[in-house]
């Protein structure tokens, strides 16, 4: 596939994924599970943006706020817009990751991992802070990959139309 066509499919997959993630996290009570690694929580909060239209007619609504209900963003969904960026908070065993996920290229902006100890004591491995940070960064990517895997499983199955029906019922409740 050429890169232009791939970029078009990036938008389709990325926006469907983030829109699904918003709804699915709420429906699941913000709980997801990863085979072999247990459960983790996923919250979409503080910042979400929705986008609709194409070319010169692109319209975007960015909704932010510490306790935002995202009413405007949900209104956007009802008008056919889809999520194109979302601030995602992931929690597991008291540890928290925050990342602004972009639908078009899955870039990870402002990724915050749980804090690491950067001060070294005598005899410590000088690479220890780096290795701990990498473990935390890769954990965050594993969470995102797992969520995306779960999305693809339903998106490419015959159950997708049922999932959309549940989505519409969720949207109507808001």
């Amino acid at each position, binding site marked *: 596939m050429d890169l232009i066509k791939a970029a078009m499919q990036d938008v389709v*997959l990325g926006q469907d994924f983030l829109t699904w993630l918003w709804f699915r996290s709420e429906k699941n009570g913000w709980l997801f599970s990863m085979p072999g690694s247990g459960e983790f929580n996923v919250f979409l909060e503080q910042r979400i943006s929705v986008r609709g239209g194409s070319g010169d007619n692109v319209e975007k609504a960015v909704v932010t706020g510490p306790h935002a209900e995202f009413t405007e963003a949900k209104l956007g969904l009802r008008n056919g817009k889809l999520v194109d960026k979302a601030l995602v908070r992931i929690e597991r065993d008291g540890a928290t990751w925050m990342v602004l996920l972009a639908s078009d*290229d899955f870039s990870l902006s402002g990724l915050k991992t749980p804090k690491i100890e950067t001060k070294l004591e005598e005899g410590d491995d000088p690479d220890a802070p*780096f290795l701990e940070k990498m473990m935390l960064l890769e954990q965050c990517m594993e969470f995102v*990959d797992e969520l995306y895997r779960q999305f693809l499983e339903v998106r490419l199955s015959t159950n997708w139309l049922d999932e*959309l029906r549940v989505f519409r019922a969720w949207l109507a409740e808001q």
Partner: protein
Amino acid sequence: MGILATSGSFTRYAVMEDLTGQLASELPERLAKFSFRDIDQTTDERSYGWVCLEDWLDSFWRTAPPEKAHYMTFSLRLDTRRIPPAVIKKHFLLAIKAEKEAMKETGKSFISKDRKEELKDQVMLKLRARFLPIPAVFDAVWNLRSNQVLLATTNSKIKTMFEEYFLLSFGLNLEQLTPYFMARRIVDQSRHAMLDDLEPSPFAAP
């Protein structure tokens, strides 16, 4: 943006070719070969190359080796001389004035297009000697087990530069893990055609 910073922005890549044992052993050597060269004492407009992750002033990995467990670490340093357009304009006008002054003695007043270009080049060269390059550094970590690379930026120009320089340095292509390419790695090959034909879902309306 440093990998160790509290918050950072990242782009993910997969290396498209397999990493052979031979190449893996050559990586430090290749990093050194394509390391950053300082241009403070030159008039070059731009320079870029690899530096030590722990110390971006170190192009020789004296501070720490690039290998850390199963990771290869390095940073892309880019130094650019940026001269404000207004400064260029001013000094070009001064050069034109000086040229006309000098031409008075010969009775001529017309400056050809070629001569103007020449004057502009001279002005740029003089100005570049007076402006220090502005450094920028972007950390990269290559997980040699998963053969994936994490680059600490989402800037598209830097991404392109990184991808090209990575290819030049190691002879390996990078594939950014965007939704489409990520999906191709996750789902079974039998469903790849489905990914190509997907259309946006009608979330709002049946």
